[in-house]
């Protein structure tokens, strides 16, 4: 057995250990690398930034489940902080049952930081099943789908939703999702109602969303933790996203090195066998 073959036979738990170490170290020895802003993030930021304070609300659909929490929660925190700092009203809802608890946690934490008042500056509508049916129904009248907020208060009693009938009165919808919910907003809110939609998705999905972005069906796009980090940079409030970027850098380098070594060993061992 040549050395190359021996390298390839290494117990993979050593690699697991290497990854664990590589991800942990930057937490204690931060590199503080700057995060450059990319156009899809900038345009989503601009769309939120242009919203009028204390007027028609931003509809934030927090559609993620725990499985994609580390990528998407930093996005919702950054967007909510942006809104509360600028006094932009926010209405939060969710299309995923697990999003109920997660959306509530995000919006209440962000609101506490900025002393935003429930009902006046923001509201939480809770969860409704049926994705496409919910999105289409809200295009007719939000009250058809959400007659009351998550805590049972009628929507008409919430000042933030006063005079908000349907998408005509909502300048921007942002969906944060690790599954097809973000696409559903394009199909059922943008397409029939011409609603302006922005999205924040996991990095796994991000490349598939470029056609929507390019065709103007999405106003902006946050892709994965990096997208959140950029948004945090834009509102100048670094948090989980920016904190993760150092570890991300180190592990990406490590993986590229692993691919290179693995391929080198593979081709060397194969060449030795062939003659």
């Amino acid at each position, binding site marked *: 057995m040549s050395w190359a073959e021996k390298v390839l036979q290494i117990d993979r738990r050593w690699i697991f250990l290497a990854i664990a170490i590589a991800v942990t170290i930057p937490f204690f020895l931060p590199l503080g690398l700057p995060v450059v802003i990319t156009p899809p993030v900038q345009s989503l930021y601009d769309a939120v930034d242009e919203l009028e304070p204390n007027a028609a609300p931003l509809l934030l659909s927090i559609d993620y489940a725990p499985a994609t929490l580390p990528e998407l929660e930093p996005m919702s925190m950054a967007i909510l902080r942006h809104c509360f700092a600028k006094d932009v009203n926010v209405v939060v809802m969710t299309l995923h049952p697990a999003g109920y608890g997660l959306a509530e946690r995000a919006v209440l934490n962000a609101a506490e930081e900025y002393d935003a008042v429930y009902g006046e500056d923001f509201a939480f509508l809770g969860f409704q099943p049926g994705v496409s049916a919910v999105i289409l129904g809200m295009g007719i009248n939000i009250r058809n789908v959400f007659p009351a907020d998550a805590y049972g208060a009628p929507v008409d009693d919430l000042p933030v939703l006063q005079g908000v009938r349907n998408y005509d009165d909502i300048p921007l919808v942002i969906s944060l999702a690790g599954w097809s919910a973000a696409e559903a907003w394009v199909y059922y809110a943008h397409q029939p109602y011409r609603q302006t939609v922005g999205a924040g998705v996991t990095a796994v999905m*991000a490349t598939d969303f470029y056609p929507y972005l390019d065709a103007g069906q999405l106003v902006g796009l946050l892709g994965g933790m990096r997208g959140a980090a950029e948004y945090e940079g834009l509102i100048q409030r670094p948090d989980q996203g920016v904190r993760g970027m150092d570890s991300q850098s180190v592990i990406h380098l490590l993986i590229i090195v692993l691919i290179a070594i693995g391929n080198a060993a593979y081709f060397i061992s194969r060449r030795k066998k062939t003659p």
Partner: protein
Amino acid sequence: MTFIWTTIGALLTLSIYSFLYKDNPFYKFAEHLVVGVSAGYYLVIYYFNYIHPNVFSPVFLLEIGGEPIGFGSFLWWMALIPGLLGVLLYARFFPKIAWVGRWALGIYVGGYAGLGLSPVMQARVIEQLRANALSIAGVEDPFAAMTNLALAVGIFAAMIYLLIAKRNLGAKNPLAKVGVLVVSAVVAYGGWLVLSLISSAGVVSLTNILLVIGLLGTLSYFFFSMKHKGILGGLARVGIVFLMVGFGASFGYTVMSRISLLIGRVGFLIDWVGQIRGIFGA
């Protein structure tokens, strides 16, 4: 109190990671626990957010959103019928009457199938066609447009020719592959430079040409009614090149995604360790 809850979360997190060493009872415990807890959570959420206000409350308590409705009124029936249909779905657990569940399923499956049809046509076909019907001239001057076109096609053809020619020679040598890639990249970059010297619109037109050819190529690759020969074969080859680069981007992004999840969890554990140190004053 918060600390106790966080500790529970942290211990469960560690139980899951113990799977990396090997399958073990801690992992299995956490795995089964989450199956039960999440099912219970979803049940409660579905019930209180939807079934209670929209079915139970109108049918049995005779009120919708706090407003009373009459027994046997239109709204009452409109809550009762879908509720009954929903209950029919459970007939599948009783083999003898399982078929009645199909009535409800028919409405559900047909309704959602119809709901998606037209918006998908609009969003995934028509809008994408609109966005990709790009001008490949880039400038209003027909002469410059022709020059751009010729240059871009030439460069692109050279790049593809190199890729395909090498493939047909059957080179198995990885160095040769890398060589082809490097040569193509240099040629493409050189062409790009020349083009941008002639006019900045040239860059626009090259990008547009690539977008158009890439889309046509990808569509051709997934076209099964003709043999991949001649122009169609060439386009399909181009398509596979684009597909592979696109998949490469997905690959990179997926790696990024999974690592972000790990970073998030490690951050959580580190914060937890920080809390322990805070409490025990270490």
